[in-house]
């Protein structure tokens, strides 16, 4: 029996090794949307204005839907490759620990004040739309269709977050100060948006992910255009950057977010009606 168990483990490990790049890449896409969506959900009932409450919840809902599409695909691959038993998107969302999450560090940063919330969203959206635009031409048809659908939604997200960055940056002295402060603080997490590691490289070579140089150039162009109109000072691209989210090394904020998000399904693991 022990031998058989060992053999199964070896089989699973081997399968995981061959499957890891695409599965890992899907987890990155899904976890970005899930974690940022959860940050929005945390603002339910706490937004500064009724209209913003609606907008924040709608953006969060879009992100949850995208997360479900990405994680659903990741779960299917994991099952097909014998990496794990029968699981689905919910399992990946609610039964993994922080070190298994592959989201970018910027998505897990706290909501802070409204400038922090909007700044985080803008810096992410400006990257997300260009990434999704590229993924819509992916060699993987399933990725292409999820990206094409998500792109339409992300375009509205960017439109809204850009308008807010401009309104706050080019607003009152107080709003300008806060928006600049949020930008300066969040900037250290933007290096990871443009970072290319071996998993990204494998996806790019397979034609699954788009050319990172193009994404980086477009992200910079969008950020520069909006910040200039917002009369905000752009921090240096050469500043020291935090990385690690893509391989599961997170800031301390993610654990608290997951504890809240996962509480119910973990407390009642077999419940089908909550």
């Amino acid at each position, binding site marked *: 029996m022990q031998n058989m168990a060992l053999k199964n483990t070896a089989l699973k490990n081997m399968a995981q090794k061959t499957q890891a790049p695409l599965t890992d890449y899907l987890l990155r896409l899904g976890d970005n949307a899930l974690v940022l969506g959860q940050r929005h959900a945390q603002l339910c009932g706490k937004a500064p204005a009724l*209209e*913003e409450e*609606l*907008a924040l919840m*709608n*953006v969060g*809902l*879009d*992100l*949850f*839907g*995208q997360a*479900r*599409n990405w994680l659903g695909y990741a779960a299917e691959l994991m099952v097909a490759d014998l990496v794990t038993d029968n699981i689905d998107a919910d399992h990946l969302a609610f039964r993994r620990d922080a070190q298994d999450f592959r989201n970018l560090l910027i998505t897990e940063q706290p909501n802070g004040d409204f400038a922090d919330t909007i700044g985080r969203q803008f810096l992410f959206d400006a990257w997300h739309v260009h990434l999704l635009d590229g993924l819509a031409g992916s060699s993987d*048809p399933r990725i*292409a*269709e*999820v990206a*094409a*659908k*998500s792109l*339409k*939604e992300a*375009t*509205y997200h960017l*439109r*809204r977050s850009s*308008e807010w960055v401009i309104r706050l940056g080019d607003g009152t002295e107080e709003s300008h100060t806060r928006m600049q402060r949020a930008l300066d603080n969040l900037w250290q997490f933007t290096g990871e948006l443009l970072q290319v590691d071996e998993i990204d490289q494998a996806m790019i070579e397979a034609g699954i992910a788009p050319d990172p140089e193009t994404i980086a150039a477009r992200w910079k162009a969008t950020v520069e255009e909006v910040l200039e109109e917002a009369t905000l000072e752009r921090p240096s691209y050469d500043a020291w950057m935090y990385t690690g989210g893509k391989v599961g090394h997170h800031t301390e904020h993610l654990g608290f977010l997951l504890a809240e998000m996962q509480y119910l399904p973990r407390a009642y693991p077999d419940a089908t009606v909550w």
Partner: protein
Amino acid sequence: MRPSGNPPPAPVIDGPIDNRPIDNRPIDNRPTDNWPSSDLIGSDRRGLPPAGEKGDIDAVLAVLEQVPDPEVPVVSVVELGIVRDIDWVDDRLAVNVTPTYSGCPATEVIEQHIHEALVAAGYSDPLIQRRLSPAWTTDWLTDTGREKLRAYGIAPPVGSASKRSLTGQSDPVVPCPLCGSNTTERVSEFGSTACKALYRCRDCLEPFDYFKCL
């Protein structure tokens, strides 16, 4: 949402299949002890003859035209443009449905309502499939759907879902659905649902939802 406990009269389908009424009541309103009632679930007929005849598709469409969108109940799933394909797979009716938004919370409910309406109309075990591609666009809203939205107080999408309209490079003039004035302004990019923006009329001063281009 309709007020509970007071469901509207169930519409009667006028089709060649049968004349069974469709239960359009909200799910939690349904009597649990006799749903689905035995004569409905007992319908083991193979539904319809194989696909290909126009009349068959029309009969299915007639059933689906009675299934309202749960969030904007004045338009049907057909008028909303989310029913993408109707076909028969080995004598089994297959309906392809596309979600409006990735995170639309009504997606499962809509699929369930479509399934129930078809079963009630005599189609045994219809297959409801979700399709993401091509992604839904407001261009698929039918003309009658648009008119019903307007009459309901929701301004229908203006123009086509071009890249310019998505990125906001061409802000449309959205006429007020209440007084018809063109002097309106956007209050927020997102309204009561992800598919709508919040507008305000500067003439009649009423706020209204705009079904934005996607």
